[in-house]
């Protein structure tokens, strides 16, 4: 018998004895609880995956909306007389501000 074989026997025997030493009491939850927790986390994962493209597209749509509103404002401003131009300007700025605030609020609620 080689030294290595002897070491293997000693270690094997010792490891079997060590494995038999009881561990402290488990604090693990029941299988059912773990299953439902995982189920809940899976649903959140699915929800996040479904919302990801919308969240990615959100800044693009907002930017397009804002640019569109600015173009409209400039076009109308140039063609309108003095007081009407101011009214158009105020309306467009108000709408853009509302879109911005609305977007931020939706984001806050989502997170």
């Amino acid at each position, binding site marked *: 018998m080689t030294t290595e074989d002897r*070491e*293997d026997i*000693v*270690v*094997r025997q*010792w*490891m*079997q*004895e*060590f*494995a038999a*030493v*009881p*561990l*402290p*009491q*488990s*604090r*693990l*939850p029941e*299988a*059912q609880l*773990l*299953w439902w*927790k*995982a*189920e809940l*986390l*899976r649903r959140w*994962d699915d929800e996040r995956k479904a919302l990801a493209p919308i969240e990615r597209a959100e800044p693009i749509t907002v930017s397009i909306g804002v640019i569109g509103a600015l173009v409209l404002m400039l076009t109308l401003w140039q063609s309108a007389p003095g007081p009407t131009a101011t009214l158009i300007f105020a309306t467009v700025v108000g709408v853009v501000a509302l879109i911005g605030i609305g977007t931020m609020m939706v984001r806050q609620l989502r997170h």
Partner: protein
Amino acid sequence: MNEASFQSFYATTAGPLRAYVARTLGDFAQVDDIVQETYLRLLRSEGVPDDPLQMRKIAFRIASNLMADEWRRRKRTGPQPETAPEPGAAPPDPALRLDMTRVFGELNPQQRQMLWLSYVEGADHREIAAATGVREGSVRVLLHRARKKLASLLT
């Protein structure tokens, strides 16, 4: 996997998995959290095979990864405070238990991991490599060193 098959899988694997994590980590502070997280990750991962043996291997792999994360965290934050003996541990000979734990604690985490998988779980080199993420060729060498070190501590 359905709930019933998970319950059966959990009943057969929770004990061995907990022992593996506890003995490899060397303390009990994070053991149950790591084991719980292992099952949650297993259940959430996609494409998990229905074969319980394959699932068991995956569970050991996830637990090994979580332990590696824990070692890295401990390296950053410094050594953990000594945990007090927990209730429920009532071995026949507390001194012997303490002595065995101390001897096993002389090995580094990777050596403890390899020895446990090899001698307690009965895993071969390929399975140990799969569970630990170490190359199969390296497992042979590392296991040899671990065995030598433990043998020297015991004799």
